[in-house]
């Protein structure tokens, strides 16, 4: 029944558009509405002509009637589209096949250019059909229909098996159902690649940066003195915690609002460990509200270990680290409330922040706290710089861990990072000259895929 209905409506749409009655969108809407109407009517048991057949449980003449109409309409449409009047479109141009590069296998790319009768030509081509077979002749099954509208087409068939030969047939189709001469191409075999050939430049960059970092770590371990410029915000950490101790007020530490999969949060939790050691030594209350549950678990472990290492396990209690909410502004409201009630003397903002940064920083300023912030979120840096006493900008946040411990291995990694930055600056300067004179090979070499 549904097949009959679809057949009638489908052919009616094709005929009407081909002979120019209404545009494709209007006819498509009518077709869809008719389809929905018939489906609903049938599901409600309301046959249009003879309800008594429905009640009797037999299918009766209604389905036969629909089939008869379907055959009549099909005949009419065939009459409209007789061989003498049908216009066969030109086939797709320059088709080609290849194994999809740099993938895990199971995919083939088929490309072709628009038929001469596509939108730039006579404009009668509506779509392209793609067929696939494992043999050169016969056995082709339709796997896709692509709408027109481009000069060049790419279809990725990702349902193939590796190491098996496939042939493809491409056909251009008009709205009235006329097909072009089929183009058969193949064979092609898909396979998986062991190396992403477009990413070798990134591998090279990774090796250079890693080598530079590891080299300086090795040099630092051998006792080489490494100079790190003073960072005011980090030098003030001890002083800030000391201030809170003297005033008898707590230290508030916020490790950002993102989850542990963000490197800024890892950096924030790493610095928390060091601040927690200080608060443990000075026996200053510490409060760490967090926005994510995984961060809560990590922060609790970090603070507990810090207190244990300093020999003050009794001073630690799990309520130091508390989960508020994942909601951004709910978290901001919660932290503001903590600030106004507990009135910490020192506030640390270390991690990733978004729009709530100024709300937090301004509230912290209003209670007279010393505020030290650090983030790599460039959009929030101006707010922290304005409202906080010290701000760690971008990579200074990642350097904080190394800076606070003075561990030679960590300091070495900072130097290695600087070498990589020097290389980046060199590439920028060289690149400016090359691009200015029309040489693009460096830009192409550095392109990320």
């Amino acid at each position, binding site marked *: 029944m549904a097949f009959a209905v679809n057949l009638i409506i489908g052919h009616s749409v094709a005929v009407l558009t081909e002979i120019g009655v209404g545009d494709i969108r209007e006819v*498509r809407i009518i077709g*869809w509405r008719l389809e929905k109407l018939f489906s609903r009517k049938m599901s409600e048991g309301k046959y249009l002509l003879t309800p008594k057949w429905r009640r009797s449980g037999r299918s009766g003449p209604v389905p036969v009637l629909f089939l008869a109409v379907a055959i009549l309409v099909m005949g009419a449409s065939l009459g409209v589209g007789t061989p003498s009047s049908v216009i066969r479109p030109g086939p797709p141009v320059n088709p080609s096949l290849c194994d999809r590069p740099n993938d895990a296998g199971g995919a083939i790319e088929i490309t072709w250019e628009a038929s001469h009768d596509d939108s730039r030509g006579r404009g009668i081509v509506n779509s392209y059909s793609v067929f696939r077979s494992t043999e050169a002749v016969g056995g082709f099954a339709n796997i896709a*229909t*692509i709408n027109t*509208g481009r000069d060049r087409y790419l*279809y990725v068939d990702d349902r193939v098996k590796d190491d098996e030969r496939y042939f493809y047939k491409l056909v251009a189709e008009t709205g009235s159902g006329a097909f072009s001469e089929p183009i058969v191409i193949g064979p092609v075999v898909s396979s998986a690649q062991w190396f992403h050939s477009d990413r070798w430049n990134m591998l090279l960059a990774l090796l250079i940066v890693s080598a530079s970092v590891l080299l300086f770590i090795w040099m630092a371990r051998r006792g080489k003195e490494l100079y790190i410029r003073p960072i005011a915000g980090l030098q003030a950490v001890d002083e800030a915690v000391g201030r809170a101790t003297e005033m008898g007020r707590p230290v508030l530490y916020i490790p950002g609002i993102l989850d542990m999969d963000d490197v800024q949060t890892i950096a924030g939790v790493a610095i928390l460990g060091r601040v927690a050691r200080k608060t443990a030594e000075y026996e200053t209350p510490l409060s760490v509200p967090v926005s994510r549950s995984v961060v809560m678990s990590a922060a609790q472990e970090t603070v507990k270990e810090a207190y244990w290492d300093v020999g003050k396990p009794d001073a630690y209690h799990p309520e130091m680290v508390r989960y508020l909410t994942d909601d*951004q502004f709910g978290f901001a409201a919660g932290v503001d409330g903590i600030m106004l009630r507990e009135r910490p003397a020192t506030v640390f903002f270390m991690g990733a922040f978004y*729009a709530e940064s100024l709300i937090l920083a301004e509230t912290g300023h209003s209670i007279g706290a010393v505020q030290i912030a650090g983030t790599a979120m460039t959009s929030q840096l101006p707010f922290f710089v304005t409202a906080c006493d010290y701000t760690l900008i971008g990579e200074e946040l990642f350097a904080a861990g190394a800076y606070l411990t003075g561990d030679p291995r960590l300091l070495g990694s900072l130097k290695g990072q600087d070498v990589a930055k020097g290389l980046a600056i060199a590439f920028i300067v060289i690149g400016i000259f090359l691009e200015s004179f029309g040489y693009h090979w460096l830009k192409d070499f550095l392109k990320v895929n």
Partner: protein
Amino acid sequence: MNHGIVDKLKSIDRRIIFLFVAVAVVVPLLYPLGLPLKASPPSRSLYREIESLQSGSVVLMAFDYDPATDVELGPMSLAIIRHCFRKGHNVIGMALWPQGAGLARTAFAQAAEGYDVEYGVDYVNLGFKAGSIVVIDSLGKSIHESFPKDVDGRPVEDMPLMRNVRTYADIDFVMSMSAGDPGLPFWIMIAQGRYGKKVGGGCTAVSAPMLYPYYPNQLVGLLGGMKGAAEYELLINTKGAATKGMDAQSIAHALIVFFVIVGNIFYFVSKRREKRGDVRV
């Protein structure tokens, strides 16, 4: 200048500043000034891009924001959808933020009022999908697998618009309305970087400086904040909520500049006073 007044004004209660800001925002909303507005190059570029798409093109629109930023991004979304409907483009909505699906529903409902469009034929709301960048990547393999049903649970296969839209290859333009993470940078990375699609963006005013580096190479256009939304409303000749808010934004900005100037005057006056005070000692 009287030192007492200078000291008092230097450390004025911030609630008085809040009061000034409130008045500066409310009064122009009640009594609009009608200040003239001009579209910036990133907004014009985005408009031209959508305008130049062939009628019937498929635009994928990501509603990656929440109610907090609906004031800025809502009017933007509405203006873009209206433009698409006017040009006869088909719009597929989706969200990487949970609340984005509901905001998409509202935007489509409002935009559809003025145009002869039908759900399922001219536009579809696929709803929210968790997964961030994984979801964006999955659209390159199969949209139907990632979104088998729309926001109301209807099978996507049954929708005329979605029958021939399977992957990025069937999408002509990607538009991301982004308030943070996940958002526009991921769409640029995957949709533009990996699949070569043209990507346009809308973002909050605070995020705009961070996204400017992507324009015009990776982003064909960018609407920043409520001003970006107002500019787009100007370009499509439809005044909306963003245009109405521009006068209030103008006065508020002018007020902030005034406060900064006054604050600096007090700063220099007290600095001079301190110097003179040192000399006397």
